[in-house]
């Protein structure tokens, strides 16, 4: 969405933003003062869908000068150090952690904060000498990240195999109770030991992370990858140029029938979004000079050939609910066989459209965009009618086994990421194996990604990222908060009521 000069004035004088939040906000507004018809060659027909909210460009600017998500291969740093930053290869834990913290400051993204900080346990483990003193260093490192990378889309990975470093990271995560960094265990039943998996389950209940990702499935679909930002699976040593999203809920409001929605509205808007994405990618590769100038490219942390782009959707539940109503069916998505049929029809049609579209500079994914179940990090009131991804609306959730099986059937479409979250009660802390059974069962049914947390904890998953309820509460009372994600958390909860997800008890 384009900005106006007045937006700058209101940010400059805002009473509830930090200096850093104002700085990046104003930079983003600046990028959107430009007319994309001029800078990127968007057509009037394409612009209509941004203006009527059917396509949301997540406020990506119209002079895209860096990829949205960057997934550096940090092993390069361990091997070579960094020439540009004049850092030698690490020789011990101190020089490793210090070097990484420096490097993170120089990894761009849509938010200007790094969305991927590496497979932390594998990076750290070779340098572990004395667990007690090394633990203190790891804990300090993680806390440093929380206080300086003030954006909980920042994501670290651990696993699949257990390491001493992996255990120390989990221990620190529980003690710190910080939202950042987000953390994912790359889970592979053949490689992840039961003990490590149970420790991760416990940590997740106590600190709302790590989440569990289906390493086997993602490795098959995306190849070597990192889990970044909310839960995006993106090629390692590459990333994603851009992410736009279809607001299916908004689009469906214009439909007269399910058939008309799927055959007319969906292809029309989806193709417009794909061509806009093409233009963004071309600008980045051909005009921005990012790939010519970044030391990350020159030194082999990333290469342009490893970039893809994400074709997002939100609001499947709202679209299906609307179409069910048009069909005269008094049911809601998540508890309706016809609703599931419509949902699959929408997504398989979209999958076809996206697979047929030839996109530029996308060698890594065979010239095609990857579908993404976007969860919403947008403060737009239009998101009230667009439930995150393919999730069931809060308040319309069926019992857990039905919910798991229903949602599992939709995970297959979203190669660049999807995931569901479930709030559990305290009893599971005494029965970690029961929760691991549920996670393993979800993976066997086709889940890509699953997260749990305790309903009564202060740390909570909004849509994929973490916030503290208390921080969101402060922002709601017009106080300054540290993280941009706390602000998103407030907006998303107001829109989607995510703080009140059904609690799963053992009954």
């Amino acid at each position, binding site marked *: 969405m384009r900005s106006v000069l007045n937006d700058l004035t209101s940010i400059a004088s805002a009473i509830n933003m930090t200096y850093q939040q104002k700085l990046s906000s104003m930079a983003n507004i600046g990028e959107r003062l430009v007319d994309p018809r001029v800078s990127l060659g968007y057509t009037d027909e394409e612009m209509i869908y941004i203006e009527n909210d059917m396509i949301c460009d997540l406020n990506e600017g119209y002079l895209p000068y860096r990829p949205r998500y960057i997934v550096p291969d940090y092993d390069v740093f361990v091997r070579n150090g960094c020439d540009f930053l004049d850092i030698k290869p690490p020789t011990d834990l101190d020089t490793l952690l210090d070097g990484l913290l420096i490097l993170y400051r120089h990894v761009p993204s849509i938010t200007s904060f790094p969305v991927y900080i590496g497979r932390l346990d594998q990076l750290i483990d070779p340098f572990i000498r004395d667990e007690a003193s090394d633990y203190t260093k790891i804990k300090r490192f993680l806390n440093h990240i929380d206080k300086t990378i003030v954006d909980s889309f920042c994501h670290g990975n651990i696993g699949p195999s257990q390491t001493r470093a992996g255990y120390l990271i989990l221990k620190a995560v529980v003690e710190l109770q910080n939202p950042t960094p987000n953390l994912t265990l790359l889970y592979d039943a053949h490689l992840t030991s039961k003990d490590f998996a149970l420790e991760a389950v416990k940590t997740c209940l106590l600190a709302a992370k790590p989440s569990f990702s289906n390493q086997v499935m993602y490795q098959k679909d995306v190849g070597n990858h990192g889990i970044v930002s909310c839960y995006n699976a993106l090629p390692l040593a590459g990333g994603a140029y851009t992410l736009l999203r279809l607001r299916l809920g908004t689009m469906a409001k214009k439909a007269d029938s399910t058939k008309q929605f799927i055959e007319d509205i969906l292809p029309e808007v989806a193709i417009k979004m794909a061509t806009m994405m093409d233009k963004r990618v071309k600008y980045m590769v051909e005009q921005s000079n990012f790939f010519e100038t970044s030391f990350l490219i020159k030194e082999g942390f990333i290469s342009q050939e490893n970039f893809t782009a994400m074709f997002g959707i939100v609001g499947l539940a709202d679209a299906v609910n609307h179409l069910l109503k048009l069909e005269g069916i008094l049911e809601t998505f998540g508890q309706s066989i016809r609703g599931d049929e419509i949902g699959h029809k929408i997504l398989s049609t979209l999958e076809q459209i996206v697979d047929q579209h030839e996109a530029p500079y996308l060698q890594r994914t065979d010239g095609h965009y990857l579908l993404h179940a976007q969860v919403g990090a947008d403060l737009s009131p239009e998101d009230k009618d667009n439930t995150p991804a393919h999730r069931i609306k809060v308040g319309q959730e069926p*019992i857990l086994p039905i919910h798991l099986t229903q949602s599992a059937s939709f995970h297959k479409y979203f190669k660049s990421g999807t995931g569901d979250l479930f709030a559990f009660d305290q009893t599971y802390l005494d029965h970690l194996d*029961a929760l691991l059974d549920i996670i393993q069962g*979800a993976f066997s049914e086709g889940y890509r990604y699953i997260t749990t947390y305790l309903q009564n904890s202060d740390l909570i998953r909004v849509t994929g990222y973490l916030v503290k309820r208390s921080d969101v509460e402060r922002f709601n009372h017009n106080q300054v908060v540290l993280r941009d994600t706390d602000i998103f958390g407030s907006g998303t909860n107001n829109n989607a009521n995510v703080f009140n997800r059904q609690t799963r008890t*053992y009954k």
Partner: protein
Amino acid sequence: MNQKILVNQIIPFSNVDGEGNRCSIFVQGCQLNCLYCHNSETIQTCRNCGICIEHCPSHALSFQSNLVIYEESQCSHCDTCIMVCPYQSTPKAKAYTQDDLMARIEIYRPYIRGVTLSGGEPTLYADFLTGLAQKIKKLGLTVYIDSNGFFDFEATSPLINIVDGFLLDIKAVDNIEHLCGIKSQLHLKNLEKLLGINKVIEVRTVLLNKHMDQMNTLNQVVDRLEGYPQVPYRLIRAHVTGLKKVQEAYIGEAIMTEEEFVAYGDYLNQKGFHNFKLQR
């Protein structure tokens, strides 16, 4: 097979009825009547007296051909029917065939490690549950029986042989008649027999003051568990939650304080028995 049994409740995911995530099926009907039973509505089958119909605020209950009919879609799950029932029953129990139950279990199968047959007293339906257990086992799931221990071992052997094990209550020994209304020591004999064939997953005792021989019960169980280090003993503190008012009036003062309860754990430790869990 069209034979049906009455089922009080099916809990899709339970984390307290044996290891891992399990589906628990609670059958209706029990030959005991324990003072602290917190689901006493599972004890008797419905007499169709109709008292609950008058009290149901959601009009989910009605008489049809002199039978009490329960309409689940109307129910607000307030449990008034259970509270007003003078006969320790419920109008909400439903009859299921083996195939009906299997259809439910199939839905939960990916996420569970097994099924626990509980109640009520599942061994009262040993024939039916033997067939059911055979079908469940074919799905690669384990089957546990949660039993009060009072059953004819020989007659129940087909069920015992097919299932993976028992979660066995030893509710009391000398005071079992006062506590549970049954004059028998069959539960101890069955514990010994089940231990001998490696079919005990866990032994459980609910602890309450005054109405039971706590120390004697603990000693009797622990003596029998000697030689079976893999079998844990779970001590459960009786609570008033879930009790009917009459029960609460009778045993409320006998509920242990947490300190009193934990002392039994200390006693077991002193005795050299450490494989126990305290459920406060």
